[in-house]
Structures are given as C-alpha cells and as structure tokens.
C-alpha cells in the first residue's frame, strides 16, 4: 500500500466531505485514521457502498455508514423516502461521488466500476473482505460516524 500517497487517499475522503457539504451545507471531517492489522478491524456500519478500481491501481474503496446517519442525511436533503432501498441508493451516490473524484484525481489511466451497495449486520464485514494494511478513515458528520476504507494497490508496469 505504500505506493498510495496521502493525496490519493485524500481524494477519496474529500469526495465524501464534498458530498455532505453540497447536500447539507455541513462538511464531514476526518475523525481518525488507522490501518487494518491483526487485532485492529476495519470499522463497519450497516450500509456499505463500494467502487472497484483497475488500471494503474487495483482494488476497492468502501464507504460505510449507519442507517441513522443516512436517514439524517436524507432529512437534511428534504427527502422523505427512507426505505431500505433508498438508503442504499444514497450510500451508492456517495460511492459514486468517490468514483467521480477518483477519475479526476487519477486521470484516464484508472478504470472505475459503478457503485455496488450492500447492507450488513456483521460488524466486522469489511474486515473479512479488505486486505491487511488497508487504510481506514473514520469520518464524522454531526454526531454520526462513517468510514472510508481504501484497499488499493498500484499495478506495476
């Protein structure tokens, strides 16, 4: 993972921050960050959206948030449809924003998939799918927390 620099990681986190700012006028900020290691899990919330990257980098970037957070987000957006499907769509939209920012940051050499969304009750779900030493960045927005997990590697040319 060492070939991913801080700017690369920020490009994903900034996308989330920008999404919250544009939709609610309040920025989401980085609360803390760490690596997935033995004994330290990737913090998982109930709703997860991810994009897959290929090209000069390979791997996935996950955005995970609680239902409560997404509902509050929808309320701030004056959206009254709070069905599970709509909650997942919203998480997918955040993942899509991450994809858009990634395209801008990495340029044409990066191929980015459409967002895929999942709902889970398994509190360590992310831990079961991400590689060791993936970055976990905890985001705070209002009283809520969310996580961005960056699990990508540069592909050697």
């Amino acid at each position, binding site marked *: 993972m060492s070939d991913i620099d801080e700017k690369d*990681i920020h490009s994903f986190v900034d996308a989330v921050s920008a999404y919250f700012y544009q939709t609610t006028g309040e920025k989401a900020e980085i609360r803390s960050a760490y*690596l997935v290691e033995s004994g330290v899990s990737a913090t998982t919330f109930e709703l997860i959206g991810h994009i897959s990257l290929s090209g000069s980098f390979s791997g996935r970037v996950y955005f995970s948030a609680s239902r409560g957070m997404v509902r509050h987000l929808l309320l701030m957006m004056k959206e009254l449809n709070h069905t599970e499907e709509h909650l997942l769509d919203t998480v997918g939209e955040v993942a899509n924003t991450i994809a858009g920012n990634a395209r801008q940051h990495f340029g044409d050499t990066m191929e980015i998939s459409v967002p895929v969304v999942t709902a889970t009750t398994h509190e360590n779900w992310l831990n079961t799918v991400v590689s060791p030493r993936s970055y976990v*960045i905890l985001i705070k927005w209002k009283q809520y927390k969310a996580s961005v997990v960056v699990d990508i590697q540069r592909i050697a040319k």
Partner: protein
Amino acid sequence: MVKHRHSIFAKYRTIILAVILFVVADSLVISINFYGTFKANESAVSINLSGRQRMLSQRTTKVLLLLQRSLETGDEAEVARDLKELDLVVNLFDSTLKGFRDGDTVTGGDGNKVFLTQVDTDISRDLVAKTYVIWEPYLDKLRPLLGGNRNFSPAQVEAAVSFARDNNLEILRLMNDLTSDLELVANTRAHFLRVILILGVFVALGNFAYTVVVSIRDLMRSDEQITKAQEETTEILSTVHEGLFLLNKDGTLGTQFSASLPKMLRRNISPGMNFIAVLREMVPQNVFDAATDYIELLLGDRVKESLVTSLNPLTNVPITTTDQAGATQQSYLTFFFNRAIMDGQISHLLVTVQDVTEQVSLMQRLEQAKKQSKTEVEAFLRLLGNDFGALQQFLANVDQELAQINKELSQDDHRHQHTLNNILRIVHGIKGEAAVLGVDVLEAYAHECEKEMIAIRESGDEVTGDHMLRITVLLEGFYERYSSLSEIIARFGEVLGNKGTQIEQAVKTPRIASQIASLAQRIAKDQNKEVEIFCKLEMLETLPGRISQDLQGISIQLVRNALTHGIETPAERAMAHKPEKGKLHLWCERLDNTHYDFVVRDDGRGIVPERLRAHFVKNGQMSQEEAAGLSDHEIVSQLFLPGVSTATTANRDAGHGIGLDVVVEKIKNFNGHLQIKSHADLFTEFHIRFEITV
C-alpha cells in the same frame, strides 16, 4: 542568396514584365511621335515654301511688267528697284525649286536658312519636273535681266514678259498642285501619327489593365497563402503541447507563441514581453546568470550551436506555484534554444519549452530507488555484523511497537494530542533501538516520522483527524520498511538455519553493553565530544524479557541525553579544569532477592535548576514569574514532560523533548522509582530502583 534572389524575381515576375512592356511601348510611341513631329516640321517647311513659290511666280510676272513700264517711262530709279526685286524673286524661286528637286538649304520665309527636303512622292516629283520644263526656258529669258546688268535690250525684256504672260498661270497651277500634294503628304503623316498615338495609348492602357489584374490576382493569391499560412501557424501554436516562441535579440518575445506557453510558465504572457525578466522570476540567480550567458552565446556567431547545446542551464528547471487553496505544486521545464537564420544572419532564437515533470519525477524515483536499494544493501551488510538473534528480537519488538501505534490510532477517543505523544514515544524508542543495532533504515525513517510529528505538535494548532491520517500514512511507510527488513532477516535466518528459538538467546546475549558503547561513541563523534564508557550490565541478562527490554530502551535514551546535554565538549571541559574525555557509567545490580538498581551517571555539566529556569524563560516556555514560582524539584520535573528539551538545536539524537518522556513511560511499565542526583558541573545520575517478585 542566389536562391533568395531567384525567389524574389519569381514573386515579382508579373510586375517586372509589365514594367518592361510599359517602357518598350512608351519608348516606341515616343520615338514614332518624335519622328512624326520631325516629319511634320519638314512638311510644314515644304508646304510653306511651295506656297511661297506660287507667290514668287506671280511676283516675277508682276516685276517684269513693272520693269517694262519703268523702261518706257525712263524712270531709272524705278528700273533699278525693279531689277533688284526681279533678281531676288527669281533667285528665291530657282533655289527653292532646286531644293524641292534635290533637297537643299534654302532661305526660309523668315529670311533664315532652312533645309528643304527633296519631294518624295511621284506626283510632287512629276510636278517639279514639269515646272522645270517651263522654268528653265523662262530662266534663260530672264538671265539677261539679272545680276544688276543694264545691258539688256527692250526685245529681251519683251521676250521675258511675253514668256511670263504665256506660262505664268501654268507655273502657278503647278506650284498650287505641288502645295496640295505636299499638304496631302503632311495630312497622311499626321493621320499615321494619330493612329500610332492612339495605339500607344491603348497599349499603355492595356498594359496598365494587365498589370492591375495580374497584380491583384497575385496579391489575392499571396494574401490567400499568407492567410492559410497564418491559420496553419495558429492551429499549430494552439495545438502543440510544447511552449514555442521566437526570442528576439533584445530578449523580448516574438508576436506569436503557442497557447500552452502561459500554462507551462504558470504566468500571463504577452507579445513583446521581456523573456529575460520572466526568467529572472523563475530561476535562481546562478541559473539565471548562466542562462543569460548561454542566450548571449547563441545570439552571437562566434560558436557553433551544436557545440554549446550541452551548456544549456535551463534543463529540468523547477517551477513552484501555489494554487488558490495554498497548496504548492512543483513542475519541471526544459528550454531548448535553436538559432533562426535569415539571409545568413542569426535573426532570432526559436525557444521550445517542454514539461519534463514526469521524466524528472521518474528519474527522482529511480534515483530514490537506487539510493534505497544501496541503503538496504549497506544496511544488510551492517546487519551481518550484528548478533542475529538480537536483530530478530528487535524486529519482533518493532512489530509489536507498530501494532501498538496502530492501536493508538484506532482508539476513537478523539484525544489526538495524547495519541500523538504516545506514538512519538514509541517511535523514539524504535529509533533508539535501531540506532543501537545500526539498523539505519529504520532509525532514519523513525527520525523522519519523529520530525513530522514534532512539527505537528509544535505548530500550536489543534491536532486533528487530518493529522491522524498523515501519521497513518507514516505508519504504513514504517510497515513497508519493516516488512522489507524482516524479509531480509528471514532469508538470512534460513541461510544460517536459525529458527525462532534464537529470540530467547538474543535477550540473554551480553552484547547490549558493547552496543550501547558503540552508540555512545557514535553520538559523541557526531557532537565532537569524547567519552569513556563503563558498562556493567550483565544483570540485564537475568531479568525478565520485558523489563530487560525496557531497561535497554532507558539506557539508550539516557546515554543520548548524557552525551547531548551532560557531557561537555573537550574545550569546555578543559576550561572547567576537567579531563577532556568525559565519563559515562551504566550499571545494573541486585540489592537483595527482589530489589534492583539501574544507574546511568555522567560527569558532565549536571542538571542545574537555575539554568533550567533561565532556559525556559529565554525560550518562552514559561514567564519569569512562573519559573521563579516553581521549586527546584518542580522545575526539574518539567524535563519529563512531552516536548520539553534544553537543547538549543534538535538533531537525530536529542532536542525533541521525547527521551525523558519515554524513560518515564518505560519505568512505569515495571513500577520502577526514579531518583535524579546532580551537582552543577560535576555529575548527573539517573537512579532507577525496581522490584521483581516471582
């Protein structure tokens, strides 16, 4: 040059031909006109004189008749006057008729001599010949009366008068016809001249029209070519990725440049702008001086362009810009200069600017990779000199410490400042252990991380989640280096057949003393100090692994501190009447079944509360009043707080205010008790007492 002239002729061929045609046609018309005018003049003389011949024929007859009457009246004066006039008119008629026949100089109407051209038409020649047929017998009859002669007879007069009466009208008619014929010739010539003039005018007009049409056509074609060339140039300049422009001899930019140039130079560019001034803002003074010399060299013609290309100082020029968010960006540009030659003279320099950021970045990465590879090889060679078990133990410790850092980071308790201090202590500990074992790659990286984290701590800003992300990135770098090193050691282990059991043996090896001694000597050398080490640390081998590790860590920190803050330079020691070589003692001893002492003592300048107060006040860490209000114990305790140091400058060995913080934390691990004894300019002793119960 010849080619250039040829191209000029080709370009202006039509105009040149038109001018030649104009000159030839005009010369022709003017010549014809001149000839016609000359002929007209001749005709006018001829017509005038032929008209005079008519008059002379009549006057001859009239004078003859008057002479006859004067003779009859006997008026001698009249006779003389008549004879004189007869002489004049007959000579004039005769010479003029002769002029018409042969061409000759005759007396004109105004009395001046004029050349009378021979008649040149058949009619005129015939008329003159017929006139001669009458005139010659007539002249014979008149001759006795001419030349002032008075010896003529009345019969001779009568004969002349009679001949005149018979032929006067015929001579008049012949002269009339001659005049008419000469007028006809003159008219024909005048008509011819008009025709020629009209033709000349038409030729001139045609030539003018041709010149205008062809010139306009050529101008339009030329304009079209110029427009097309301009469009192509504009297209090239707006498309090309490189920055392109012509540099004038006075250092200004030409009128056209590629669209990418302002973007590459990261500034507004306008035609005629002074490139030298732009360059001055972009590059350091030494590069600027070299660049202006190079440009001057290229603009001169003393050296060959190909010979000085390698002197170009404007290669891989770093350009630093700051965006709106305040973030700095660095790119690299290379400027290529080529002479533009016109008429064999250097007119401009064609400057091509290329963005070589990617190449430079690649080169730097390659260089870094080479350096890293070299460092790793060197580190590996150094590691070979170490105790293998100690290395394995060290790596196991590092693994645990890195995991501990990650755990600290993952504690989502929002106490970032606290987390930062804890991580700093761990990193400092790793740095110390790496230094003891000579694991440069980890020592250097730990130092780098430490510097960044200290910068965060000392910035005075609140430690935020963004800082935690930065530290996480640093941690990843640590893991990366740790993994590489582990892999090397593991392979080394496989070669030597060492297995995991080596770890326990490593702890028990007595090499800690020599390792600390070599670390102390290295630090002393770095700081231009001299020191003698006395270690008695065999007891450490008998202690439980964790306590032994902590005490080793404490040893490293206190040795660093002793050499940085305690022991003076040889010169200072000489002034204080102390031996130039300082002394550093470390020992560990058992007091009874359960109690142990661990001591580090140096004979340096000591910890002096008054000096500490002055230092803290001077550094702005506390006010005069605050410093004065603290007891000696309290002021010394400040040294154990994170971020407090008495060093004037920070280096890799001390000065960051971490070492004693680490010492305290490690002592806490085994519930030890620390006592500090010191005397100004004599010694400092760190005395740790601890208990081990089974």
